């Protein structure tokens, strides 16, 4: 194994050795290495197999655009596929593995696809795997998935923590290269709140791999001094390892910070990745430019990479990408790379320049082939030569690496994510950022500047302009001198003719020039169609390297300018973002907030089983020793309430305090029944409609004093009802003096129901609650024995004599305990929402199972609650429509099973006796059902066509889904105490 690490140089810490493995072999690198630079230093040029043809691949870049060197990093639950070796920060103990190969990276059986490649061109799948149709799912797709692909995800749950955070700033600078650093410096010195984010683990961008000197010192040192100054400014936040991946509405930027992706065992107290939403008043895109590959035969083999990548490995990491490096270029970048290599003692075998002439300075002793081209590369796992062509003559030139430069493309991705398209520049031979207004500007090479000095200046200027806009005093930045710059200009060259091997445009998807031609011939000419037909520009790199070449090549084929071809659509994310980061903490027990009742602890002590109801946890039933099923508990609770007394937690009902002289009028307009004359100290059941005449919600409202009411709503509609009141008051009738505030959380509310409830309640309340003093529908503030102020309502959902007592939430448990104690001799029990549901069903009370968004007041037997004499109320006008008053509407009825042991299920359909089970014969449906312990058989509430005229009729209850048919008798929905004798005990 040859070491390609140079004896000195680079920004790696040679004092800190790091051990890592690749495909089971142990290697060493330095702190400051990427996985790619460390592999290259260890002569591991072969890193991957390509997606489709399984061709051997190495690195193409030294950055985030890398299409080829995709590796799997980590193991176990932390195994992460498709990591780009060029951006993975090396750490001690890192475990990396190649992917998409079998049995090994060197000997990959899938290489057969390369031999079959004449049959595997673009559109191959669409044409070949068309029929027979059933084969697609069973045979073709599994086969294709196995043959083509990337790494495999871990199947275990992610053990790491992720989180999200907001950030706010005057200026967000994206990219910490020359332009970004100067922009941040200008803004930071001016006193603005600045965030400087860069995807790299070390700030400095291209300056870190640059051989020119800036401000009289090496470029990387200059970057260091600027960063030092920025770090000392309290108004500047530096965010290395942070990729700004998206630009969203209202200048909100999405970014992901890799907090702990560079350690072997992450701290459990820290997130491994943090998703940022950065709200910026202004922003600068200083994301630099991407060097374009040249499209020539065999341009994908290990050892062929961009000239800038070769330069970065050399200058930043102290790694020579080869011992004999050839250069193929159409501009100054190739010459600069050759010069840097020569200066560091690396042999440069030739510079092949596609141009007939150039003014670029020739490194001493290096042969330059002008007007030349490369038509093929030789070697398999690492190139060992190339075939150059000039004026029809071919020549083999030995080399073990080839640095290519096809010009530059500004990285304008973020500025195009909200619909604007990049603009073609003939002068720059590149797509430039579109004009998207004054808040977000591109600077430096992202804006088309190509010299370091211009980028430094542009960064400072753009920042100053944006800050002036925000009212900051103008700040004149001092721009340092740059020495030893080169001229990076280039002549366009989209495609190198005469290729003797595939010339790849998109390395990651194995799309070559032939595929683009095929797409044009077959009619997929729009660039978006070309993309989808060939897959050019898809997958994890989204065509960062290939798209501009693809546009140029298609333009050439069609004989038009790339401006006419344009680009495909840019969308977030700029680089892949993990699902973990997007989910943040919203998983497992943090998936949604949990609401607990003030009586939660009381319920738990009494053996409650809890049920989720929206965000609430409600007590469903209370098991007692010896009870084997929930039904046993529920039946016992129901019978006990009917015979004795029971206590139920109803704290989750919505409660709204209503104040003001206009309160009565507002209530009268939002309820269908009358509320103007509700006396102080009384509760009234109320029905609210939607404006379309359908029932919205029901509940009670009590008048506590002249201008103070308290409304209760159902648990499910608490938020909606408050919003409905606010909407009505604020938009319909702003002239009414009425104010609302929710008091749902203030009160622990309990329903004490059963014939013995008064006896028990009178042991708790000081006030006289005899039937005369506190009749049905009384609602008043009372004082408990012990002195606590509370609210007492005589209302009933169960049909029994019942009270609802509301006490301040903190005392809920104590009061509930006291009631249980006070009722012990009366045989009190705790009952849950299941029993509550049975009780209300037996009594024929409706809930949102019946008030389900299609029913009118009359449908559910509440027609008497439509106070049509009122001039207006919400829903009045449309409730009178013909469709809502038709005689054959579904109406609420009761059902009882003819055979006592037969169960009726909610959701079942109702058919006439003897009718064929079919939806064509549908007469209605069961809305709620239960076993009635009071009656000893199953009962149900149902919506039945003209139901109120059909009491006594036998109908078929057909549950097609669960395959049951039960005969039932239609009856009144009120099964228990139809004359309300028990309410008025």
């Amino acid at each position, binding site marked *: 194994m040859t070491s390609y690490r140079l004896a000195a140089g680079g920004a790696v810490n040679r004092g800190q050795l790091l051990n890592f493995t690749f495909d089971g072999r142990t290697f060493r690198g330095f702190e400051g290495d990427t996985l790619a630079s460390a592999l290259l230093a260890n002569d591991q040029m072969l890193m991957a197999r390509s997606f489709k043809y399984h061709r051997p691949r190495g690195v193409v870049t030294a950055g985030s655009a890398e299409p080829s060197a995709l590796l799997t990093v980590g193991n176990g639950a932390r195994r992460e596929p498709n990591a780009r070796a060029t951006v993975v920060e090396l750490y001690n103990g890192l475990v990396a593995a190649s992917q998409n190969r079998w049995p090994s990276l060197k000997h990959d059986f899938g290489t057969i696809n390369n031999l079959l490649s004449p049959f595997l061109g673009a559109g191959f799948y669409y044409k070949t795997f068309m029929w027979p149709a059933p084969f697609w799912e069973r045979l073709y797709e599994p086969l294709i998935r196995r043959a083509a692909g990337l790494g495999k995800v871990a199947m275990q749950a992610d053990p790491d923590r992720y*989180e*999200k*955070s*907001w*950030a*706010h700033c005057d200026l967000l600078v994206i990219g910490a290269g020359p332009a970004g650093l100067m922009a941040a410096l200008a803004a930071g010195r001016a006193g603005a*709140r600045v965030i400087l984010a860069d995807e790299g683990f070390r700030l400095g961008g291209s300056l870190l791999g640059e051989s020119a000197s800036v401000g009289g010192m090496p470029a990387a040192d200059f970057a260091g001094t600027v960063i030092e100054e920025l770090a000392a400014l309290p108004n500047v936040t530096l965010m290395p390892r942070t990729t700004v991946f998206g630009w969203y509405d209202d200048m909100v930027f999405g970014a992901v910070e890799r907090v702990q992706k560079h350690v072997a065992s992450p701290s459990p*107290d*820290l*997130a491994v990745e943090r998703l940022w*939403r950065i*709200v910026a008043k202004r922003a600068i895109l200083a994301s630099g430019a991407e060097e374009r590959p040249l499209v020539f035969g065999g341009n994908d083999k290990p050892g062929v990479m961009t000239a800038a990548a070769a330069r970065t490995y050399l200058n930043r990491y102290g790694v020579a990408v080869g011992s004999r490096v050839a250069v193929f270029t159409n501009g100054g970048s190739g010459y600069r790379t050759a010069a840097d290599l020569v200066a560091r003692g690396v042999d440069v075998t030739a510079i092949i320049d596609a141009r007939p002439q150039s003014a670029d300075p020739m490194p001493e002793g290096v042969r330059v082939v002008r007007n030349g081209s490369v038509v093929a590369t030789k070697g398999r796992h690492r190139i060992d030569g190339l075939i150059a062509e000039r004026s029809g003559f071919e020549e083999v030139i030995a080399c073990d690496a080839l640095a290519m430069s096809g010009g530059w493309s500004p990285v304008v991705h973020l500025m195009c994510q909200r619909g604007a398209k990049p603009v073609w520049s003939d002068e720059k031979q590149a797509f430039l950022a579109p004009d998207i207004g004054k808040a977000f500007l591109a600077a430096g090479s992202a804006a088309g500047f190509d010299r370091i000095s211009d980028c430094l200046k542009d960064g400072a200027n753009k920042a100053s302009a944006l800050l002036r806009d925000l009212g900051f005093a103008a700040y004149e930045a001092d721009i340092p001198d740059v020495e030893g710059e080169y001229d990076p200009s280039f002549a366009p060259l989209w495609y190198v003719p005469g290729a003797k091997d595939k010339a790849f445009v998109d390395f990651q998807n194995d799309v070559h020039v032939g595929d683009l031609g095929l797409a044009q011939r077959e009619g997929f000419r729009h660039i978006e169609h070309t993309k989808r037909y060939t897959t050019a520009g898809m997958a994890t790199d989204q065509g960062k390297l290939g798209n501009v070449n693809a546009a140029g090549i298609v333009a050439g084929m069609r004989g038009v300018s790339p401006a006419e071809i344009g680009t495909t659509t840019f969308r977030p994310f700029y680089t892949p973002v993990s699902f973990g980061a997007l989910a943040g*903490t919203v998983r497992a*027990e*943090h998936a*949604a*907030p*949990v*609401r*607990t*009742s*003030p009586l939660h*602890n009381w319920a738990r002590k009494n053996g409650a089983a809890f049920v989720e109801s929206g965000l*609430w946890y409600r007590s469903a039933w209370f098991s007692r020793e010896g009870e084997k099923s929930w039904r046993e508990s529920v039946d016992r609770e129901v019978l006990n309430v009917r015979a004795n007394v029971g206590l139920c937690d109803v704290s989750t009902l919505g409660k709204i*305090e209503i*104040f*003001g*002289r206009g309160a009565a009028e507002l209530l009268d307009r939002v309820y269908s029944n009358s509320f103007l004359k509700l006396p102080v100290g009384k509760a009234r059941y109320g029905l609210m409609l939607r404006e379309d005449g359908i029932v919205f919600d029901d509940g009670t409202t009590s008048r506590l004093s002249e*201008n*103070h009411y308290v409304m209760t709503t159902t648990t499910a509609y608490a938020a909606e009802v408050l919003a409905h009141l606010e909407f009505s008051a604020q938009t319909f009738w702003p002239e009414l*003096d009425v*104010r609302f*505030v929710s*008091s*749902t*959380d*203030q*009160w622990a509310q309990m329903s004490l129901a059963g014939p013995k409830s008064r006896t028990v309640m009178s*042991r*708790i309340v000081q006030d006289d609650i005899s039937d005369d003093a506190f009749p049905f529908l009384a609602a008043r503030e009372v004082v*408990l*024995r*012990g*002195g*606590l102020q509370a609210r007492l309502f005589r209302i009933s959902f169960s049909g029994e004599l019942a009270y609802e007592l509301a006490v*301040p*939430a*903190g*005392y*809920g*448990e*104590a*009061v509930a305990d*006291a009631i249980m*104690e*006070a009722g012990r001799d009366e045989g009190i029990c705790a009952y849950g929402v299941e029993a509550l549901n049975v009780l209300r069903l037996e009594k024929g009370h409706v809930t949102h199972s019946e008030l389900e968004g299609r029913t009118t007041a009359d449908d559910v037997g509440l027609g008497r609650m439509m106070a049509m004499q009122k001039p207006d109320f919400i829903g009045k006008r449309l409730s009178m429509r013909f469709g809502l008053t038709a005689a054959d509407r579904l109406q609420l009825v009761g059902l009882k099973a003819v055979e006592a042991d037969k169960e009726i299920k909610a959701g079942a359909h109702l058919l006439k006796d003897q009718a064929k089970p079919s939806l064509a014969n549908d007469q209605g449906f069961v809305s709620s059902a239960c076993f009635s312990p009071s009656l000893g058989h199953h009962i149900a509430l149902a919506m039945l066509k003209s139901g109120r005229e059909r009491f006594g009729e036998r109908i078929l209850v057909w549950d097609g889904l669960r395959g049951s048919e039960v005969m039932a008798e239609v009856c009144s929905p009120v099964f228990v105490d139809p004359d309300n004798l028990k309410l008025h005990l």
Partner: protein
Amino acid sequence: MSINLLQRHVLEDHISGFETDPNPNHLAVVRRPVIFSVLAHAGHEAAVAEALKAASDLAPRFCGPSEWLAVSQTVGAETIGGLLSNIPGASFADQSDGKVLMTISGPSVRKILAKCVAVDLHSDVFAEGDSANMLCCHVAANVARTGADTFEIIVPRSFAGSVFDELMEMGREHALTRGFSD
């Protein structure tokens, strides 16, 4: 019978067990603050705002136009109720049991809260004495800045456990400790 009126704080179960000394970053749960909703009626908005500002022993927290939370950690509910009943044009409701008040403080407080709220809490924008309703850990809360590095968060009681757990989770990297303030 007389009821043994034992008050139980909703976070009692969340703050059980071994209590260490508070770290610089600390979340304190105030055991029995007095918190009233105050609403001004039409025509009285400015007068009620003035009266609340002038009142001693209570801090008004802004909720929305003509709506505040009146918070006191020094006097009882009767005193605050009496005080509010003397403000013409104001309606009020005791919410002391319906709200949970937490004080979060320390050098990392803004970093922790940046994970909980979307609002810019920089002192130039959200100065000492400022307060507003906002989403905090997915729950509608009232957040007030009561010091350079101190914020008070008021959340509905039923959500308090969730918000408390979430705040502690977000404070983990900053060694956030917790406890009742008394």
